[in-house]
C-alpha cells in the first residue's frame, strides 16, 4: 500500500501531463471536432483524408528529409567539434562555453537572426560573398523550394550542433587514456585509433543523442514557422506547421490532430531501432 502511495505523485504527473494529452490528441484525430464544436467519432476518416492530401504528403516527405539531413549534419559536425574541443589548447574553456550559445539562445531569437541572414535583400551572407566576388547578386535562400529546404536544414544543424558536441565531449572524456596509449604502442595511426577505439566506445552515446535529437527535429516548429511559415508554396511544411495551420488557425481540430499524431508512426520506428541498437550493445 505504501508503495502505491509513494508512486502516486509520479503516476499522476505522468498520466496528467503525458498520457492524457496524448490520448486526447489520438481521440481528437478520430473525430470531426472543429474549434467550438466537439464533433462526432469518424474513425480513421481524417487519416484517410490526409493520406490523399498532397500538402500533407509533401509535409511528411520534407519532415523526414529535414530530420535525416539535419541529424546526419549534426552528428558529423558535432563529433568533429567534440574531437577538437577534447584537445588541450589555450582558451579551451571559453570555446566550450561559446559552443553552447546556439543551443542556449531562445529558438525564436536565433530564427529571427537567421531570417535576416537569409533575407533576399539584406543577407549578410550574400553581402560577404558579393564582397569576395564569389557571386554577383544576392542569393535567393528562401525563394525556391530547394534553397528554402536546404537553408532550414542548415539552420537546424547550427542550432542542434552543441547538443551533439557536448554529448560527444562527455563521451570522449569517459574513454580511458590507457586504450590510446596501448594502441600507440602497437603502432596504430590516429585514424585507426578513432575507428577501433573512439567510435565503438561512442556508440551508446550516439544512439541516445540521435534518438533524442531526432524527436526534437521531427517536431521542430519554431524555426520553420518563423523563417518561412511553410512557404514558398508549401515547400517547407512539416508535420507541426501543417498541424498548427489546420488545427489552430483554420479550426479543423480533428484533421490537425491526425496530422500531429501521424509522426508517432515514425517515432515508433525510430524507437524500435534505438532499442534494438542498445540491446545489441
Amino acid at each position, binding site marked *: 500500500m505504501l508503495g502505491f502511495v509513494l508512486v502516486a505523485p509520479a503516476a499522476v504527473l505522468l498520466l496528467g501531463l503525458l498520457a492524457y494529452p496524448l490520448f486526447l490528441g489520438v481521440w481528437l484525430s478520430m473525430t470531426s471536432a*472543429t*474549434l*467550438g464544436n466537439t464533433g462526432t467519432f469518424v474513425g480513421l476518416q481524417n487519416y484517410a*483524408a490526409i493520406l490523399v*492530401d*498532397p*500538402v500533407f504528403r509533401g509535409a511528411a516527405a520534407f519532415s523526414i528529409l529535414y530530420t535525416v539531413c539535419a541529424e546526419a549534419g549534426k552528428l558529423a559536425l558535432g563529433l568533429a567539434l567534440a574531437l577538437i574541443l577534447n584537445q588541450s589548447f589555450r582558451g579551451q574553456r571559453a570555446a566550450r562555453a561559446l559552443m553552447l550559445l546556439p543551443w542556449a539562445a531562445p529558438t525564436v531569437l536565433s530564427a529571427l537572426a537567421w*531570417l535576416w541572414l*537569409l*533575407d*533576399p*535583400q*539584406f543577407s549578410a551572407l550574400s553581402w560577404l560573398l558579393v564582397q569576395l566576388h564569389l557571386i554577383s*547578386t*544576392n542569393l*535567393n*535562400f*528562401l*525563394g*525556391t*523550394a530547394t534553397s*528554402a529546404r536546404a537553408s532550414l536544414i542548415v539552420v537546424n544543424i547550427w542550432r542542434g550542433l552543441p547538443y551533439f558536441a557536448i554529448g560527444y565531449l562527455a563521451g570522449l572524456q569517459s574513454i580511458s587514456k590507457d586504450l590510446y596509449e596501448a594502441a600507440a604502442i602497437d603502432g596504430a595511426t590516429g585514424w585507426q585509433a578513432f575507428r577501433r577505439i573512439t567510435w565503438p566506445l561512442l556508440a551508446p552515446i550516439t544512439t541516445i543523442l540521435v534518438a533524442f535529437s531526432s524527436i526534437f527535429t521531427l517536431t521542430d516548429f519554431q524555426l520553420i514557422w518563423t523563417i*518561412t*511559415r*511553410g*512557404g*514558398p*508554396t*508549401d515547400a517547407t511544411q512539416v508535420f507541426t506547421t501543417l498541424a*498548427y*495551420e*489546420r488545427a*489552430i*488557425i*483554420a*479550426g*479543423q*481540430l480533428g*484533421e490537425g490532430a491526425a496530422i500531429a499524431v501521424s509522426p508517432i508512426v515514425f517515432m515508433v520506428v525510430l524507437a524500435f531501432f534505438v532499442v534494438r541498437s542498445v540491446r545489441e550493445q
Partner: protein
Amino acid sequence: MPHPDRRRFLELSAAGLGAAGLAGGLPGTAEAYPAPFKPEKDASLQLLRWTGFVKNDDIIWAENTKKFTAATGVQVQIQELSWPDVTPKAALAAQVGSGPDIVMGWNDDPFVYPDKLIDMSDLAEYMGKAHGGYFDTARSYCYDTDVKRWVAMPVGVTGNAIVYRKSWMHEAGFAKFPDDFPGFLKLAQGLKKINHPCGFSLGHAVGDANSWTHWLLWGFGAKQANPDNSIAINSPETVNAVEFARELYATMIPGVSGWLDPSNNQAFLAGQCGMTMNGISIWYVAKDQFPAIYPDTAHAVPPIGPIKQRTISNNFTSAFVFKYSKYPQAAKAYLAFMLDQAQADTWVTGMRGYVTPALKSYADLPIWTSDPEITPYRDAMAGARYDGFNGRPGRASAQALDEFVIVDMFADVAVNGVAPKDAIRKAESRLMTIYKRA
C-alpha cells in the same frame, strides 16, 4: 465603490460624450440615437486586439479606453498580440470558453465560431444608423446570413494601396500613375528597366501575399467560389490573372517568393524596391524615420482590371464578444464609445489613416484629405471585396486564405513555372477539399 446614482450618471455621461464628440462633427451621428448600452454593475472587460502597426494606434486606443473608464467606471484590460496571432488565440478562447470578453479579430474569424458569439445586431444597427451605414464588405464579414444576425461589430480595414516612388515612376516614362492593369504592367516593366524593380510577395506573407494576388484575381473577373459555395476558380479569367502575374513577376526584385509580411516594407524603405502594395505604414515610417525617401513616396488606389471595378483586398478587422463574457452590455457600450465620432476621429487621425473605418460617415474625416498621400487609403473600403469572394464568408473561405491556396496558385505559375491550367486545377482540388470539409 460604485457611485450611488451610477445608472443615471452613465446615461448622462454616455449622452454627454456622444454630444461632445459631435462638436464640429458630421451630420447624422450618434446624437439622434440615445446610447442603449448600459454596462452591468461592477463590470470589467478584457480586450484582445492586435499590436498597432503604427505606434499611435496603441497609444490613442489606450487613451480613449481610459476616457471610457473615466466615464463609466468600467475597467478595461487590453492585451495585444502580433496580428497573425490574434486569430488562433481567439479560436482557443472560443474552444475553452474563457478568455477575453472582446476580441478585435480578422476577416472571417467570427464565422468560424458564430454560435460562441453574442448577437451584436443592436450595436451594429445602432452604429450603422448613427454613422451613415456600412460599406458592403463590412456586412459580408460581420452579418451571418444563416442565423440572420450581426455576429461582430465592423471596425474597418488596414487598407491597401500601391506604394511607389514618384521620381522613379517619372523616370520610367509615366507622368501619372496608371489606372488599369496594362498600364500598371508597363510601369512595372519600366521600373525594372531603370533598375528600381517592383516587389510583391509570393511567399507565405499573410497580409501582403494575399492582398495583391486577390486584387489581380478579382480584377480579371475570376473568383474562388460561387454564392452557393461551389468552387469557381477553374475559369478562363483565372488563367488571365495568373498569366498576368507571371509577366509581372518577371519585373520584380529577386526573392519575393520568400517574402514574409515585413519584407516589402524593408525593401522599399532601403530604396531597393520601387513599387509594392501595402498599408500606409511604409509612408508613415518614412515620414518619421526616412527623410530622404519620404518626399518621394506616393500612393495610388490599386488600378482596375478588365472588369472595370475596384477590387481591393484588405485585412478586415471586427470586434466580437464571446457568450461567456459576464458583461456583454459593458462590451457593447465600450465598442459604441470607441467607435463613436470623438474617439474614432482621434484614433484614425492619430494613425494617419492606417485603419479605414467601416462606417461610411468616417470617409469624411478631415484626415483623409489633409495630405494627398493619405487619400487613397480612404477608398480602401469602398472598393473592397471579402476573401472567398464570391462565395459565403465562413470557415471554408478562412481556411483557404490561411492555407495560401490562391497565393500558392500564383506562385506555382509565376515562380515555379507550372502551367496555368495545372496550377489552377491544383488550387481547385485544394479548395474542393477545404469547402467540402468545412
